[in-house]
């Protein structure tokens, strides 16, 4: 079932076009990532989905409703965590959660949520005295307090230390386990690779690719890079002539072989026939990072031409 549908979204602020043409759809229960460099139009897109901004063109539907005109149908089931949205500075953490809980018909127990987010010790602390990570966790808690069917999380882990980031990832994965659909805005590849079922890569206001992280990476046909230290001297020119191998070169005692998908098995068979062992064998495959850079670089050069 489609829970969020965005078709041909367009939004400009005066002369500056923030979103040119963005389309995607979220299926129930998935974690969908919006990926892109700063200024690509990610935040504007989710603001239109949350009903905070009116699109200039295109169509946005949340549970089949227009988030601008049918606010009540959307807000009750959509939890939103936005960048730079604070809480009253002198409000204590538990008070904030109780306040927001009172807005929804069937909220989560605030104390239970505090426990899950590791904020129990801060329940009596005022917002102004919380650390960045604690504020971020409170913000997530406020997005989840109303028991939403869909949660929008914008730049969730920006500004968190690595340990807090990992904790947050675990939390998001756990939230999804219970069937909550998540729209995750990020510019961290590791985050998208780890959490998202599918990602849409946005660049300069357009979706340039939309697929699973693995498929996006596979699409990038750079093949693989194999490094090893042979147990006995090997002629690298001979390696370069193997089928499926593009090049082979020697770097000190290490040999680097670049080739397509079958290069590794061909190489290993060849070495075995010669009775050579491959020590410290490493195979590098393109990561989502590489795929992302290729996708965003490609479109920015096209848009300038």
């Amino acid at each position: 079932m489609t829970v969020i549908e965005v078709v041909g979204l367009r939004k400009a602020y005066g002369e500056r076009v923030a979103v040119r043409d963005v389309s995607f759809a979220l299926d129930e229960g998935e974690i969908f990532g919006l990926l892109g460099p700063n200024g690509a139009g990610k935040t504007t897109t989710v603001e239109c989905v949350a009903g905070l901004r009116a699109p200039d063109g295109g169509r946005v539907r949340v549970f089949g409703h227009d988030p601008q005109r049918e606010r009540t149908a959307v807000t009750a089931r959509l939890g939103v965590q936005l960048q730079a949205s604070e809480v009253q500075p002198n409000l204590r953490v538990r008070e904030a959660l109780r306040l927001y809980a009172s807005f929804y018909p069937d909220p989560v127990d605030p104390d239970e949520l505090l426990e899950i987010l590791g904020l129990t010790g801060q329940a009596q602390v005022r917002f102004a005295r919380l650390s960045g990570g604690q504020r971020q966790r409170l913000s997530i808690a406020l997005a989840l307090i109303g028991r939403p069917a869909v949660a929008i999380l914008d730049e969730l882990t920006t500004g968190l230390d690595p340990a807090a980031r990992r904790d947050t990832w675990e939390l998001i994965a756990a939230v999804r386990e219970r069937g909550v659909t998540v729209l995750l805005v990020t510019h961290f590849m590791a985050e998208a690779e780890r959490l998202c079922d599918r990602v849409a890569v946005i660049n300069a206001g357009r979706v340039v690719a939309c697929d699973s992280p693995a498929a996006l990476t596979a699409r990038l046909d750079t093949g693989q890079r194999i490094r090893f230290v042979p147990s006995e001297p090997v002629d690298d020119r001979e390696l370069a002539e193997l089928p499926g191998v593009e090049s082979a070169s020697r770097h000190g005692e290490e040999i680097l072989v670049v080739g397509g998908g079958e290069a590794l098995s061909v190489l290993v068979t060849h070495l075995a026939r010669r009775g050579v062992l491959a020590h410290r064998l490493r195979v590098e495959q393109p990561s989502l990072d590489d795929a992302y850079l290729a996708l965003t670089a490609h479109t920015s050069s096209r848009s300038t031409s």
Partner: protein
Amino acid sequence: MTSSLVPPVSPTTPDTQCRPRSRPGRHPFWALVRVEALLFGRSAAGVVWTALIPPAAVIVLGAVPATRHPSASFDGRSPLETWLPVLMMYEFLMTAANLLPAVLAGYRERGILRRLSTTPVPPSRLLGAQALIYLSLAAVLDAAMLAIAVICGVPVPDQFAGFVLTLVLVAAAMLGIGLVLAALAPGEKAANALGLVVFFPLLFFAGLWIPRSQMPPVLRDISDVTPLGAGARAVQDCLDGRWPAGTALLVLAAYAALCAVVAARRFRWQ
């Protein structure tokens, strides 16, 4: 947080279990009123300048014999009777036209109104809660100061209906000015600065430094068309036992209407 998280959310199945909930079983608006009132109580400066200093001033004026008794230099009124209307005006000025716009502009600046926009409770409810808290606070303090003054010998105003009508119009005018300031100010600091810009002139014309009875005619004419000058004049009429001057009520209503139009056009939630 650990990996053995019990996830908080189960959206598809309605919650049929009966489980303890620390949720305040309140209507969202009253939950907002409660929280914002609590937050006001935590702002020491706000409490001191609204709830402590003006009533203390009335008590001092009422306790000292020289300021309790009528004096020829104040048109036959006592200094207490002279400054009581000014202090009553001060309460609405301080709460609705100074504290309220600073809080609202600050909330907008910090994205609090924006976060509220994503919930089933629109930010206009927060504005409503703020207005209710500040205006009732000012009304209660005005009533308390009147009670103190009556105990100290000021006659009970015969024109009680006129007195209430005047305070309602003063509240509306001050709320209007406060909303215009909140609309014009980009943030909390700017709202505070704008608040000061209106604070001193309005108080001056209300008669804080020169009582209206001692103002030169030109000053008093100007005072008549300022919101708090008109308000102080109407309250003074009530204390003197007269129905408040029609022009004074009209001036207050005009400010309220004008400011409402400007605020409605210029106010932004984000």
